């Protein structure tokens, strides 16, 4: 019978040496293998005198426990060491570029259309559309602009037939006509879309975008018109206060008609909307002319309301500081990338229109 204490201290010493996994496992076998030093001691237990047996057993168990712990600890530390060494070898330069990705963009006009729709959605407008090709009746005549009307000169029209009966719509107003002919009042719609005029210079493009608004019900008056547009402009430019001016004007399809200017100032070369002493024309509007209502079989004695038309491209330019209208349609990759919006950036009223 060996001295347990001796075994213990001897092996504790051994285990303190710098061992590899095999050596530790060898020690483990030496101690706890079938014929290991400790295992064999347990076999001797019966031979120990009864009065000493208890203490012997206790010493033996203590030694076993201590050595086992030490071995486990040793193995753990060796393993950790090995992993660490392996990881150290695997170390790479994470400042290297990531896998390439591409980021798509939404055109500013599309983004602004979504912003506009979101704002008008809040106050109960729904979105309507109409075809790009219109007949002369919907584009002019039904809108109280007969063919001898000088107001037609303000619309340089693209025609598709020699008789001038088919044309590219010069404004989104024919959507008013289509909507009212197809349905019964009340009407509360906006109609964004492409519009066309045979006009091309630095500030005009032969195609541009407008959004039409129409609200017809009983007792809708110019106060509602003013309130609606004030709300829209304030929300759109995301400012608390807006300076706005209604000016009498003339459109054949509204009476009374108005043009709306908003106040602005130039600060550090940038347009600031909201205050200032300069005026910028942003839209045309008015009370829908009774002749128009009659043309679409709506009784003007019972129903009345307002309509407005806003240039979308211009709004986009103002809000996002875009200087050149022509660039909108040039499809320059650099421009689209710079002025475009991330597709995830859907304008909503709870999260805000823009970031």
């Amino acid at each position, binding site marked *: 019978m060996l001295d347990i204490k001796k075994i213990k201290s001897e092996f504790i010493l051994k285990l303190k040496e710098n061992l590899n996994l095999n050596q530790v496992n060898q020690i483990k076998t030496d101690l706890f293998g079938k014929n290991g030093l400790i295992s064999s001691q347990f076999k001797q237990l019966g031979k120990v005198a009864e009065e000493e047996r208890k203490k012997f057993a206790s010493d033996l168990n203590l030694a076993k426990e201590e050595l086992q712990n030490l071995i486990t600890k040793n193995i753990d530390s060796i393993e950790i060491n090995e992993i660490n060494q392996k990881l150290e070898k695997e170390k790479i330069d994470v400042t290297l570029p990531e896998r390439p990705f591409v980021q798509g963009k939404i055109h500013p006009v599309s983004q602004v259309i979504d912003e506009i729709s979101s704002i008008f959605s809040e106050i109960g407008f729904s979105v309507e559309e109409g075809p790009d090709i219109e007949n002369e009746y919907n584009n002019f005549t039904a809108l109280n602009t007969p063919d001898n009307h000088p107001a037609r000169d303000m619309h340089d029209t693209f025609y598709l037939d020699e008789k001038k009966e088919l044309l590219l719509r010069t404004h989104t107003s024919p959507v008013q006509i289509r909507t009212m002919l197809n349905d019964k009042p009340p009407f509360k719609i906006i109609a964004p879309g492409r519009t066309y005029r045979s006009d091309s210079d630095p500030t005009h493009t032969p195609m541009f975008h407008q959004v039409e608004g129409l609200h017809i019900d009983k007792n809708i008056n110019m106060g509602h018109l003013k*309130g609606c547009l004030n709300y829209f402009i304030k929300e759109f430019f995301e400012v608390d206060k807006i300076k706005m001016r209604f000016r009498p004007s003339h459109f054949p399809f509204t009476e009374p008609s108005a043009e709306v200017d908003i106040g602005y100032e130039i600060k550090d070369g940038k347009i600031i909307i909201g205050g200032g002493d300069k005026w910028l024309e942003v839209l045309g509007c008015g009370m829908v002319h009774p002749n128009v209502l009659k043309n679409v079989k709506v009784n003007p004695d019972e129903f009345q309301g307002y309509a407005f038309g806003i240039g979308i491209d211009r709004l986009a330019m103002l809000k996002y500081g875009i200087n050149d209208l022509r660039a909108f349609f040039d*499809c320059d990759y650099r421009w689209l990338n710079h002025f475009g919006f991330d597709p995830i950036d859907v304008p909503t009223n709870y999260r805000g229109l823009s970031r």
Partner: protein
Amino acid sequence: MKITINWLKEHLDTNLNENQIIDKLTDVGLEVEGVESQSGELDNFLIAKILKAEKHPDADKLRVCDIDIGKDDPVKVVCGAQNAKEGLFTIYAPPGAVVPKNQIKLAVSKIRGVTSYGMLCSESELNLSNESDGIIELLPEKYNKKIGKNYFPKKSLNIIDISVTPNRADCLGVRGIARDLAAAGAGTLKNKKEKKLDKKNKQTVSVKIENEKNQACTSFGSCLITGVKNTESPEWLKEKIISLGQKPISAIVDITNYVMFDLNRPLHAYDVDKIDKGIIVRNSKKNETFEALDNKEYKLDNEMCVISDASGVLGLGGIIGGTRTGTELDTKNVLIESAYFSPRSIRKSSKKLNIDTDAKFRFERGIDPLSIEQGLERAANLIQEICGGIVSEFDIQKIEDVKKKSLKFNPSLFEKITGFNISKKEMIIILNNLGFETKEDKELLNITVPSWRPDIFQEVDLVEELVRIKGYDQIKMIEPEKVRNKPTLNLKQKLFHFLQRSIASKGYLEAITWSFTDSKINKLFIEDNKEVKIVNPISSDLDVLRSSIFSNLIIHFNNNLGRGFKDLLVFEIGPTFSGLQPGEQQTVAGGLRSGKLARQSWLEKERLVDVFDVKSDVIKSLVEAGYNKDKLYIDDETPSYYHPGKSGRIFLNKGKEKVVAFFGDIHPAILKKLHIKVEALVGFEMFLDNLKQPKKSLKDQKTQYKYSDFQKSERDFAFVLDRNFKVQELIEIISNVDKELVRSVKVFDVYEGTNIPEGKKSIALNVTIQSLEKTLIEDDLNKINQLIISAVESKTGAKIRS
């Protein structure tokens, strides 16, 4: 319409200053477009005399002139005008002056070695006329005492440019503007009394209006003034004409122009001695010609209203006069015409002949038909005053009487439309100030519309008059209600927005290009569609509406390649056109991508984009939009602009109802034709109108949540089958073996070549099998394996590879 405050004050008694007047103009709907200062810029131009004009030593066409500008020493100017000669009176612009025409600031400069101090001006350079041939020649007798003085009368005069809307014909004259301002409280309209004319003679020139169908002239007033001495206009008149941006011509012409701008009453002056017998107002006959005052010869159509005499056409009534009977400085006897022409006819004729004149602009908007005599009166008075002569009685020919419009107005309409109220009393005052006659009739007002307001037809027009004069700032703002009774977008619109953002999220940049395009390029993409031509395109390369979303996109794409980009992704969503009727259009989302993936990446192997990249873009977008990927059906019939072997079309299901998308390589022949140099170019088109709404809404799909926790097994198969056999069918056959158990089929290898017979291919698939009810045991799996193999072999003639 241009006015000056001084001119305005001839009609308006006001205490307001210029800025207040400008604000007031805007407030009543006469938008001030700009205020240009006429002073300053023109102060520098001096009356000068050429003392000496010698040939330039080094240039045949140039002259070196000594110019007297009233200083002790003459200045030297090099001048290229042929008429620059000794003794000529002209206009000199010193260094520092800005030339009105081109806004160039003059400086001392050396011209071929000779220093030139300033320049001598032509009429065109001073914006006095289009005459650019030679420098201005002034009359010596008039200017010889004025050498060194300013040519342009010195005045701190601002020209106010008002944008008059087409309904306000009456505001195309200064008096009309003054009337509006007076009504809006800016002052009082002056009551101008005309000096009583001493009409000594009868008007002896015969005037006849042919009373024929569509006669546009309903009334023709005339006055004969004999024994006049036509001359240059006096200063005050010249100043007015110049302030309008026009060039003074002679007193008679200037007077007719002045009356037109003052009273909005166009007139025309004839040299009576050149009229053959009398004047006949009639409709033109086809191909009649005449030479107009713009020195152009016009060939007329039928039924244009002409003023003629026994020898032919003298002028186009209300549009432009002719050269044959024009007044000149030696004209002795004049006939002044003051007539009314119908706006419709004026518009029609002038459009057809493409003539735009101040008179035409006014007549087509509607001239006051009752201003005929007023115009004659004013013009005759001025002519007599300036040119002398004896005035005749007025001759008024008419084929129709003028009746003033009258209407009943219910004052309560005002509040109904504007949302605020003004008293009936105030309404009457405003209307009266604007020239309306009012008579109270119980609750209503009986209104007589002034003859100068052709734009007033109905009650609401009066509401507009009242509210614009009262001020739009009086309208109370009513906050909008935040109530929604109808969804903002319908399902189709939602799909549009969804696909737009879905495609962009695959890395594509959204472009917006014209709806029209170049027919030559469009032809490449037109297929069976009809070409939709624009009758009046803005340029010859934008002459048709696009039949395909690619027609413009591919050109812009190529421009970007030209900018040095290689790996591009661009898309557009918008209309394409198949006919010229409204509605013959489709909404299409089309994309193009080029170049490589992982170009020059340290990480990954770069490769060219290919058909399966765009296929993935399209299918992922469809899946995101809510369509079932497993139902999509694909075949390979595509339009001719795609690579015939590397393109496909997609249907929502095997029924192949409508094509929802094309995808593939763009045909190399297209690239060649359009000179597109690119490593790889693939594209897709999605047809939104063909995308039926998914049968089940997302909301309904969510409720059917089924899943299995039982063990799943995977089995690999390899089949050898005909090269042309579509893998899509193979997958379908396998899936159909047991729709419950076959959970997915993956293709992990496609192989042709060694060990595979000619005309065959090997397809390796991985099939996942899982039950919703139990863990499958080996027997079950073997059974289904056998079923798969036998189904494939019997239906496709394939052989399982062992």
